């Protein structure tokens, strides 16, 4: 797998990343790996989204690496961007150079920059081997089975039925009611059993 269809986007996150990590140095180092494109952007999650779409089109990118914040925050965002641009969302990898780099190595900018380079390289190596993934869509039978006709089963069935869904309630005994029906009064207010 060659690097020629990979686009790498490096986010400054204002000064959140760029204040510690020397993003120019990172892009210079990454450019040497022969990827199709390395681009820095002050805010990938805002203006950068459109940039990805444009670049995918212009450079014919097939795999994307976004070095920015944690994938826990923006993985879905950039996956959606890829989908919009016609690239399978699973052909995008996020590299965490904020939470796990710039923010926690604030006083060691050189080491943080080297770490960022390594993290992006790791991301490139991973994305090279990614395959497009399409989730399988299966039909939904809109009918629920509730097993047990005690208070929980009764209540769950009633809630679903009142929402307009079809429910099959199955009870082992000859009547519904369960243990609740055997109770006389219930705590804490001594109400009659429902």
């Amino acid at each position, binding site marked *: 797998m060659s690097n020629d269809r990979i686009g790498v986007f490096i986010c400054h996150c204002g000064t959140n990343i760029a204040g510690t990590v020397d993003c120019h140095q990172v892009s210079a180092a990454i450019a040497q790996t022969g990827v199709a494109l390395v681009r820095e952007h002050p805010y990938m999650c805002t203006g950068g989204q459109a940039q990805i779409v444009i670049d995918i089109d212009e450079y014919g990118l097939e795999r994307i690496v976004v070095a920015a914040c944690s994938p826990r925050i923006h993985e879905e965002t950039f996956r959606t961007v890829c989908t919009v641009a016609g690239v399978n969302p*699973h052909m995008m990898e996020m590299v965490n150079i904020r*939470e796990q780099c710039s*923010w*926690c*190595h*604030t*006083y060691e900018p050189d*080491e943080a920059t080297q*770490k960022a380079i390594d993290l992006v390289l*790791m991301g490139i*190596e991973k994305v*090279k*081997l*990614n395959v497009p993934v*399409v*989730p*399988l*869509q*299966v*039909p*939904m*039978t*809109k*009918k*629920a*089975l*509730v*097993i*047990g*006709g*005690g*208070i*929980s*089963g*009764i*209540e*769950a*069935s*009633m*809630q*679903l039925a*009142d*929402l307009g*869904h*079809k*429910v099959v*309630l*199955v009870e*082992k*005994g*000859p*009547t*519904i*009611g369960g243990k609740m*029906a*055997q109770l*006389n009064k219930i*705590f*804490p207010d001594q109400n009659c*059993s429902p």
Partner: protein
Amino acid sequence: MVDVGRHPNIELHTLCEVIEAKGYVGNFEVTLRKHPRYVTEDCTFCGECLQRCNVFAEDEFNVSRGLRKAIYTPFLQSVPRQYVIDDKACIHFSEEGCQKCVEDCKKHAIDFSQTVEEETLHIGATIAATGVRPYDPTGLYGYGDSRFPDVVTSMELERMMSPEGPTKGEVIRPSTGEAPRSVAFVQCVGSRSEKDGELAYCSKLCCPNTIKNTFLLKERFPELEIYVFHNGIRTSGNRQERMFREAREEGVVFVNSFPKITEGHVLTFFNPLIDQQWLMKKEFDLIVLAVGIVPTAKEISQVLGIPLGKRGFIKEENQLSPSSTPTNGIYFAGAVGSPADIKQCIEQAGNAAMQVSKHFQRDTAELSSIIAKVDFERCTGCGKCSKQCLFGAIRIEDKVAVITQALCRGCGNCVNACEFDAIAITNHTDEQIKAQLKAALSEPEDKIVVFACHWCSYAGADFAGTSRLQYSPNTRIVKTMCSCRVKVDLIKYAFALGAPKVIVSGCHPGDCHYLDNNMFTKGRVMRLRDKLSSKGINPERLMLEWISASEGQRFVDAIQRMEQLRVEEDEIEMSKMIFSQPKKKRSKEEDKIRSQSDFIA
């Protein structure tokens, strides 16, 4: 209850069991077994049949403290409003061939020709709400012993107090039929005990239930003397604590002591107010054992293929999804998941119904494709992966492992189980992780490789960053979905590349997002540490750490502890050398040859 019977959207099957369930979210195929009622829907509940029937049986609804006929209704408000014939008691099925009820039924609603039927249904989602049964205290405090007829369970007292119960609501001493003058409640009977056959947990509703009963008894008999022997009263929350206070104000005596029972219903106990050693003796007219609750989840867990916890309750997927089982589309509600009172059951039922309703908002369900894939060329069908899959997503068919996409969660535990490298997780392959390690360790000198699971540890590392906690920039974090995905070979590979230190991190025990898969991780890492020791490598170079999403500091502490560990260059060279030696791979062909030679031998 009555509403269920007449709701146009609810199809009610009583005397019915689920015997088989197949399929996946949106497309389950379940088989029901319907037992005969012998009374058709034409029944008007007039009661003529009841008058004629002369056959009696134990009344389960009244905890066998009374009798009912062979044709009966468990209680007057039963739903459906139809009588039922107990075919174990009814003599129609014996040689006598009685027909009395048939003769008297003007609606011709009795049909002895009914038989067991099976029906298959297609459904989209399931809620298991099979509930609990009271703990059977036979043998404890003289229960079930004829010398102690006045020892009853809390459920028996409950039925006694019910106007529909065996005593028509009169609370009596079973031995004499008279009203009691003194009552003792014994809490935690068979509960919170590690003894065999007893319940290790707190059933949580026995304390407030007993206090409720003391009120009801005081209402009927203001002069009644009531003692409650307990092991620490548990009345949590606002209203329950108020009940406890009011009961004491009413004169109920709470004694923190386990009593002993002796002949004549005499309880012996410590009086903690006077002297721990001073034994009190007191005779009681009625002794009520507050018994815990036992989940009835075993059968349904087998049918639905959902796991149970150690105590036999249905295991929730994780504590933040309290109605979800690990199988998408199967939910549970009520005490079958954990002891719950009526109010909590209703709350959970609402939650489970909401989960199901969410599925029904859409016409399709989406199944993830980030799952295990089997290389059929390499798979020998040995079945090891299938045994280690806690989700039951792998079955062996025609000597190869087959993945059920809807059940697979992509955790990667099976990848570890496979000795033939025949199984991989899409986009989380060994090759990909190795490629990342290679990039991370291009200059391995002082690096710390951290494997972090997606759900907890990686989030914990994020949290450290968000909190601006500072740690060594030598760390290189590799994210996996679950710590169980960290194959031993990958750790070895990192050492082979010259990594001085490796941390494997995951969710805390019990918090794993893939059931208990992190326990597999623990076993593997611990075994590898032993192996390191045996090869003369400092095992401290491989660390296993549980880090939750909120434990940024714990993550940093782990890194700092690792930082302080000194690893000499020759040590690194040694581990590099040991783990660089190519592992002898087992392959399908070799195995065939081996099994043939075994056969010959």
